[in-house]
């Protein structure tokens, strides 16, 4: 291996406003909490458990619905004042009976739907009496993903998470995944009714000629109250969406660059626009009503303008090969992941007709292969691929540790598309201090009474921290010195719901300086966390898999898959316990058959 650990002299130093923050929150179960906090927090699970037990026995009458409604409000209040309420609900799932477990799962699914995920086989998790099932309870939220064939494991004819759920074939390269249920599909297999819409447009120079383009996208669930207000205000119903076929903003006529949450999509008409362009809809003559006539001008862009806007959106594209060589492995791998995905989205847009590119006065769509003249996007992707393959880029110590622990020396992790690596990064950004040594902390400071820093403190992750803290850890621990690369990684974590914004805004982080104080939550523990809450997580999975209800079983499997995916970094003890529970769950079915066979024998005897 040619990769070396990043030289300490090149270590990134956080400059204001990016500093390690103290405005953070730790779990109420953290051993370093005060005794008052510990005693108060200790009361929450039993009280909640008692309420849930009582709720289950309350008949659904007028009084009953009033009680359910009040409980919903109480839950919202608790969640807003105690951000780690999910640990209390997990304790109920882990240690109480099946009735309160069901309601606790429904409560979790209502409060943290993305962190929990959604069911695809059994009934929706929040389909309980006191929590009305949202219309979109099990709606997918697809995002682009890159499946690296080099990382594929040997299989025995089984269907794994890198198989297309539509055609069952193995996926190589660009595809789409719903990270909330792990449904992956080829882009070509994406005939999801809620993810395709047609744009019928007339040619600007001849209105009699009509054309149709097919847009592929995925809406991201937004706050339902907000949607209601928008219906009255704008008559458009805008939702943040991921586009998989590049298209133009109807306001500024520039492409919706990016791979995630590129803009807003009206649910009623084909209008798509940038988040920032919404305020200038009127000045651009765009109707506030859903009666827009689309012409070819809304779909067409000149190649030079396409290139210019791309360079504007991705400043990294202006870098020369020598400049790219000075980046760390993590940065180049992140750029490669994002830019390669962007290139796929661009080509998809041209192929599906959502983007008509004029190149030397000719429509690219008229070319047999839809070939677009290469520009910096193509060149940078190629350079990044070469740099990754030649192994000349230095790893950060944390990545080196990951490679050693997961025994993946042959297959270096893809920073933004490796689930285990992203779990690892999340565990690190939760930590109170960088694991890689923080230059501002001298040995003397460890003995300071004013700022006591102990090794124990590092072992207990935060449940909430400002964005600036996360940015600092990425720079210090993972050599993500470039803000551009760090933003891509953080938005990926946000999209996978490893990190959530406290304000629940559905749009991604756009500016570190402006949003440095934006509070980030880390909903639900991860298997890699250095926390006592991992024990609760494991017990929750074990209890969920012991339950008769298949929804609760699926909840347990979602936790297993999304929060405790086997890796070399996970605790052997935890993996063993979970594997035993899964094997027992499988053998339960054997026992069912065994008992039914026995039943037949008994009936014959009797």
């Amino acid at each position, binding site marked *: 291996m040619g990769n070396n650990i990043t030289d300490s002299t090149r270590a990134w130093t956080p400059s204001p406003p990016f500093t390690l923050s103290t405005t953070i929150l730790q779990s109420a179960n953290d051993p370093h909490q005060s005794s008052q906090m510990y005693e108060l927090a200790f009361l929450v699970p039993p009280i909640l458990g008692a309420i849930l037990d009582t709720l289950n026995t309350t008949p659904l009458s007028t009084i009953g619905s009033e009680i359910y409604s009040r409980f919903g409000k109480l839950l919202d209040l608790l969640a807003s004042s105690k951000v780690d309420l999910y640990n209390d609900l997990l304790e109920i799932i882990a240690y109480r009976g099946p009735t309160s477990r069901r309601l606790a799962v429904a409560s979790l699914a209502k409060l943290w739907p993305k962190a929990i995920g959604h069911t695809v*086989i059994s009934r929706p998790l929040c389909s309980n009496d006191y929590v009305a099932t949202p219309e979109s309870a099990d709606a997918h939220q697809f995002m682009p993903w890159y499946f690296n064939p080099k990382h594929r494991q040997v299989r*025995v004819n089984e269907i794994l998470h890198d198989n297309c759920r539509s055609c069952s074939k193995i996926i190589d390269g660009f595809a789409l995944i719903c990270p909330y249920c792990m449904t992956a599909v080829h882009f070509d297999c994406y005939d999801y009714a809620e993810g395709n819409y047609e744009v019928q447009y007339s040619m600007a120079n001849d209105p009699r000629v009509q054309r149709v383009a097919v847009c592929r996208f995925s809406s991201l669930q937004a706050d339902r109250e907000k949607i209601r207000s928008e219906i009255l205000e704008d008559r458009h119903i805008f939702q943040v969406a991921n586009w998989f076929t590049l298209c133009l903003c109807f306001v500024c006529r520039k492409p919706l660059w990016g791979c995630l949450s590129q803009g807003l999509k009206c649910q009623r008409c084909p209008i798509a626009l940038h988040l920032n362009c919404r305020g200038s809809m009127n000045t651009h003559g765009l109707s506030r009503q859903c009666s827009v006539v689309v012409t070819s001008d809304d779909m067409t862009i000149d190649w030079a303008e396409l290139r210019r806007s791309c360079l504007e959106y991705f400043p990294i594209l202006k870098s020369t090969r020598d400049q790219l060589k000075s980046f760390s492995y993590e940065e180049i791998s992140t750029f490669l992941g994002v830019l390669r995905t962007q290139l796929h989205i661009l080509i998809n847009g041209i192929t599906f007709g959502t983007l008509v590119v004029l190149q030397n006065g000719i429509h690219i769509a008229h070319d047999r292969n839809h070939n677009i003249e290469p520009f910096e996007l193509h060149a940078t992707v190629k350079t990044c691929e070469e740099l990754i393959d030649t192994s000349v880029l230095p790893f950060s110590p944390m990545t080196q540790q990951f490679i050693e622990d997961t025994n993946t020396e042959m297959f270096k992790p893809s920073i933004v598309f490796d689930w285990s690596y992203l779990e690892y990064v999340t565990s690190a950004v939760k930590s109170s201090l960088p694991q890689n040594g923080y230059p501002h902390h001298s040995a003397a400071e460890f003995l300071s009474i004013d700022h006591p820093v102990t090794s124990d403190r590092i072992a207990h992750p935060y449940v909430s921290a400002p964005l600036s803290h996360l940015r600092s850890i990425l720079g210090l621990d993972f050599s993500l010195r470039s803000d551009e690369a760090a933003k891509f990684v953080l938005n990926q974590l946000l999209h996978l719901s490893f990190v959530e914004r406290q304000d629940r805004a559905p749009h991604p982080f756009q500016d570190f300086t402006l949003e440095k104080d934006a509070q980030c939550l880390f909903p639900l523990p991860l298997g890699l966390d250095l*926390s*006592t809450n991992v024990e609760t997580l494991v017990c929750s999975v074990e209890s969920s898999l012991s339950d008769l209800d298949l929804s609760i079983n699926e909840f347990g499997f979602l936790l297993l898959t999304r929060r405790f995916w086997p890796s070399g970094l996970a605790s052997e003890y935890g993996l063993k316990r979970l594997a035993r529970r899964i094997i027992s769950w*499988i053998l339960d079915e054997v026992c069912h058959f065994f008992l039914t066979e026995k039943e037949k024998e008994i009936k014959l005897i009797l």
Partner: protein
Amino acid sequence: MSLFFDRKRERNKAHPLKDSHLATILREFVAKQRNLPGVRLPQSTVPWPPSPNTRSAPSSTASNGGDFVSARRSLLTRFALPWLSRLHALDPVFYCQTLFDTCSQIAEAGELESNAMFGFAIRGNDVCKTFHFHIQKLPSCVYCLSATFEALRQSSPLDH
């Protein structure tokens, strides 16, 4: 490696062999024509993309429990096997040992307590025989066994 704290737990850990989920399903849900626990209702929308193993929705609420078994097997192929497969790929010897330990513990559980439904005891030897008979019938268990053999094949006898 994560810190892991083994705390005393107050919960009922039902032994798998003491469970009679299907019997409960038959008695408490099918016989009383109640909705099967966690099984999607016939009128609910089918998730996209439809699973090739999904049973067609019954025309009425009447069910014989087959939907429960079908959904359970979908969970098995969708979530349980990929997780175990990943664990096996990660460390075949560890996987093999865990599988062996789990099966041993179940088999060595000895004489089972009386079944609540029928009020009689099933002897441990019967359990083992029937267990081995049925384990070969299920693709999931065959996978477990094949993975075990694969693990044994990969680890040389000299290693031991």
